[in-house]
């Protein structure tokens, strides 16, 4: 063994020793587990979610952590696969021994891991859309995003105000579109609305004029499209191409500038329900959400580019979890769960959260703003 090797070995040993000493001195870190669809078809959800989590964990750690304890983020990429989600959640629970889980970009992944978190008795804040996650409420699972049922309710409320009673539904064949369709069919009668056409299209379809030609002759007074990705933009263009002069409603699935960019002039007059984050600048100064929204938006955009509501859900989930840990003054899972359930008046990007044992979402319809696209930008039309 030459002298250099010996020296470097010594140096390594010292470093390791120092590291261990440092660890022992500092308080045990708070471990936040996460599994998100950072790659794959749902990456538009997972990507901003992970960026948001990392950005705020770094910021909080820079400021000294929570109760003097640093935060450690343990993350796995599911690629949008529920099967992988199950494996990763097992690992988060058994190997990483995390204190709380914030994650699950898609409804499929979230629903797949709910039995696991219930068995392991660990608080889980989901970032996925489906209403099934919180109805009926499961003891250990909470969720941040608005549900598709709320979106449908908001849209039907707006239609009722405009005196529309006959609606044609066209939805994507993916999970989001299917679930939105089911909720729309269920809720329509409550608003005195009759669904006169019920069409669908494939996720990667390139032309929907056949379905829309049928809708044109169905006697509908408005068209409602549930879907995300390229589908809604093509539907919007096809509606104008066919010269159909009916009000067109989209879901919150297209609530991003990308939709306006893709659909172009055809997007003019399209209405959709969306979280206030999209129109943060336009909110009146009296709105309690405005400062929170602007702070998140500016921070995210300074680092990564245009903000999306999905990253906002991760912000809400992270801070509801941390505030609960702060209030509980420990990471005892039972106590933290109880505190999350007691969240009242938390002002997040998704709305103002008021949780209860019966309501593990805590948002009402006021969390959605009804927007109309005018001159290539969002306008609030309440």
């Amino acid at each position, binding site marked *: 063994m030459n002298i250099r090797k010996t020296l470097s070995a010594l140096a390594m040993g010292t470093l390791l020793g120092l590291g261990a000493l440092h660890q022992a001195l500092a308080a045990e870190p708070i471990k936040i587990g996460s599994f998100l669809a950072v790659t794959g*078809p749902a*990456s*538009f959800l997972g*990507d901003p979610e992970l960026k948001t989590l990392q950005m705020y964990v770094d910021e909080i750690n820079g400021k000294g952590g929570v109760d003097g304890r640093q935060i450690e983020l343990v993350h796995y990429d599911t690629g949008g696969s529920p099967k992988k989600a199950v494996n990763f959640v097992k690992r988060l629970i058994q190997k990483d021994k995390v204190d709380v889980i914030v994650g699950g970009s898609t409804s499929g992944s979230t629903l797949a891991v709910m039995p696991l978190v219930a068995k392991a008795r660990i608080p889980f804040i989901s970032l996925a859309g489906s209403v099934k996650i919180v109805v009926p409420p499961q003891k250990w699972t909470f969720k941040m995003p608005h549900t598709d049922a709320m979106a449908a309710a908001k849209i039907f409320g707006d239609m009722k105000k405009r005196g529309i009673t006959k609606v044609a539904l066209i939805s994507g*064949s993916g999970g989001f579109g299917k679930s939105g369709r089911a909720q729309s069919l269920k809720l329509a009668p409550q608003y005195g609305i009759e669904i006169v056409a019920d*069409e*669908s*299209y*494939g*996720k*990667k379809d*390139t*032309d929907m*004029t*056949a*379905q829309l*030609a*049928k809708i044109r*002759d169905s006697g509908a007074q408005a068209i409602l499209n549930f879907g995300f*990705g*390229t589908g809604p*933009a*093509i539907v919007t*263009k096809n509606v*104008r*191409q*066919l*010269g159909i002069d009916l009000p067109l409603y989209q879901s919150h699935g297209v609530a991003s500038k*990308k939709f306006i*960019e*893709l659909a*172009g*002039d055809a997007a003019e007059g399209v209405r959709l329900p969306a979280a206030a984050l999209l129109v943060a600048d336009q909110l009146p100064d009296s709105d309690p959400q405005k400062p929170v929204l602007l702070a998140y938006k500016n921070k995210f955009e300074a680092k990564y580019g245009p903000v999306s509501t999905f990253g906002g859900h991760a912000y809400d989930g992270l801070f509801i979890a941390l505030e609960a840990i702060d209030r509980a003054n420990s990471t005892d899972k039972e106590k933290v769960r109880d505190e999350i359930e007691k969240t009242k008046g938390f002002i997040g990007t998704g709305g103002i959260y008021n949780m209860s044992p019966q309501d593990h979402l805590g948002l009402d319809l006021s969390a959605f703003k009804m927007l109309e696209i005018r001159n290539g930008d969002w306008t609030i039309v309440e």
Partner: protein
Amino acid sequence: MFDQILQFLLTGVTVGATYALVALGFAIIYNASDVVNFAQGEFVMMGAMSAVALSAGDGGLPLLPSLALAVLITIGVGILLQRFAIAPAHGASVVTTIIITIGASIFLRGVALLLWGKDIFALPHFSGETPLHIGNATLLPQNLWVMGGAALMVIGVHLFFNHTTQGKAILACACNRTAASLVGINVGMMMLVAYGLSAFLGAMAGILVTPITFTSYDAGVMLGLKGFSAAILGGMGNPMGAVAGGLLLGLIESLAAGLISSGYKDAIGFVILLLVLFFRPSGLFGRASAERV
């Protein structure tokens, strides 16, 4: 009702023309080497995405030069693919080569993902978006570009394979490699030409349809699948058959969506494809496989 049917037919032909363009690329490589090139959909995506990248932003090129450049880039990708992925596997079985093309398609998707991210992009329509009316049915000027482009390329490919020495040389390579090289055909060169040509067709398909369909790094998957189905339906290795298969698949889908159920239109398309293969295994217009010795 008549208006509706007319609209379904127009929709079917426009969607079908897209499938036909992709199917044509499949047919050419199959003609030259008996290999199904599963990276064909990625050629379409490459053409579209590089056109978007070149024309985007304030510093971007005007539309026409960026389209031309995008086609050249894609041809380059096709040739590189042949030279560095397919050619080194010289002497490998057809199945091995097909697996290589699947690998190449995943690789190209990955490259596009790294270069351009996961966003969806659009190209401007070549001649405006004012719909043209035929009775009560409509179509976009861009639809005519797609159909016209498809028709031109089909005729071009037909002339190339049947009336030029180069084209016939490519066909000869597929029939019998050894014999082809014995009569003085540079087989390696012909393979490069075949891949370049398919990449060219893919890129053209990409830039023609993107104003209507949008594009993203994974847009090639579904287009490739549909184009492959169309090529099978028409008869692999017969460029005319591929085009007929594409149009037929487009019409079946649109009529099924309009008249039966939009939820089952893809299923109906695939059931018809299976039935055709059951009764005519070489496709509607394919030569019987015994001929290809």
